[in-house]
């Protein structure tokens, strides 16, 4: 029996196939959990967010448009569920602390890098202050809106926008 693709599994979940959800979970829960743990140090909160994620996949698989990478779609749900759990538990400060020490991105296709073709990207990102890097990571790598990033980092969305602008200027300068 050849293994079903993630796309097939998601379509089956949309039709109410519980076994397909289990298979998706077994393929994706571990890496999603590890990635969330880099954004939130509290294991209980991450576990709850992972559970919420697959419950949400179960309920809304029908809304997946059938294009793109299912893993990216699942991650998009997961990071938002993490924000949701953090909001209901009211533990902004903890998440903010965890994210400030957190990482940045090297992925392509993002607004930060528009017009940049050469230069030491990794080095330029490393030179950003932790606050600016956290914002770049949340908005670019995690694909969050300024408002969602603000919730994750525990800062107002206006601050997210100004930090993003400063990061963009600094990166352009470093990579020019």
């Amino acid at each position, binding site marked *: 029996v050849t293994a079903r693709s*993630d796309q097939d599994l998601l379509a089956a979940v949309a039709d109410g196939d*519980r076994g397909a*959800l*289990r298979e998706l*979970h*077994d*393929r*994706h*829960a*571990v*890496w999603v*959990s*590890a*990635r969330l*743990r*880099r954004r939130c*140090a509290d294991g209980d909160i991450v*576990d709850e967010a*992972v*559970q919420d994620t*697959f*419950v949400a996949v*179960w309920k809304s698989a029908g809304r997946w448009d059938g294009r793109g*990478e299912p*893993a*990216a779609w699942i*991650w998009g749900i997961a990071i938002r569920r993490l924000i949701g759990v953090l909001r*209901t538990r009211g533990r902004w400060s903890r998440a903010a602390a965890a994210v400030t020490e*957190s*990482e*940045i*991105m*090297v*992925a*392509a296709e993002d607004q930060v890098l528009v017009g940049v073709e050469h230069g030491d990207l*990794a080095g330029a*990102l*490393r030179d950003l202050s932790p606050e600016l*890097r956290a914002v770049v*990571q949340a908005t670019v*790598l995690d694909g969050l809106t300024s408002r969602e990033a603000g919730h994750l980092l525990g800062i107002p969305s206006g601050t997210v926008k100004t930090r993003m602008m400063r990061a963009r200027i600094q990166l352009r300068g470093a990579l020019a």
Partner: protein
Amino acid sequence: MTNTDWHAPPALLARFAHDPATVDDMTAASVEAHLVVCADCRAQLTAAISPAHVTASWDAIADRIDRPRPALLERVLHRIGVSSGLGRLLAATPALQGAGLLAICVLAAGAAVLSLTADAEGPFLVLAPLVPLAAVAASFTPAADPAGEAGVATPMHGAGLVIRRAIAVVGVTFGVLAAAALALPDVGPAAAAWVLPALALALGALALGTWLRVEVAVGVLSGAWLLAVWSVWLAGRDIPLADSATFSVNGQMSALAVAVVAAVVAATRRNHFATLEAFR
């Protein structure tokens, strides 16, 4: 876009799975971006974790998707931040379940219709305070409580549960009555004269409920309220019911005083709720 030849080193994936915080920022970012597009590396990372963890995670999810959908009221309570346990206890309050809620609405609407036909606030002002009272009686009659026997075994059984449910019942009833009051012929401050008497009666039922069974307490208070309104009205001679002393400033102040006294009594005697004795 994806370079399929490159894969993350297995040791790095194992470290990322077990202790992601120890992976430095730049490496983690690169691994994360790769994981989204590489099923092989995701499988490798998953294999580094004990299958028991994955099974435990799935069991918790299966438990949630198999769970029956909570009642509407319970979901609303959860949405506004009430914990799920308390939400279920409140939603199981008899007066707040379908039939009870319907009865509250019918009683409130009935009182408003009576007032409309009489073209005066009087009937509504007299009857409205009895609605929360009836709801309180329905909530604390042990036979009416679907969670009654089970409730005895819960840690929150007792005064805490009685008081929380009373607040929920009275809150909902007041909301329904306030909506009904908007239908009164003359919506103004006078149309709100039922609020303090209703509060006094509901708190009075709780206070009396520390000596009597709550149905008895409610019966006594209903009788006393009707008698008081009637005698005050007779004494006042030839004025509309809504203008009698009960609904004047003095009457409202008396109701407030009764409410405060009753609240103090109920709070100090909270370990004597007679409705609970039935279970002991």
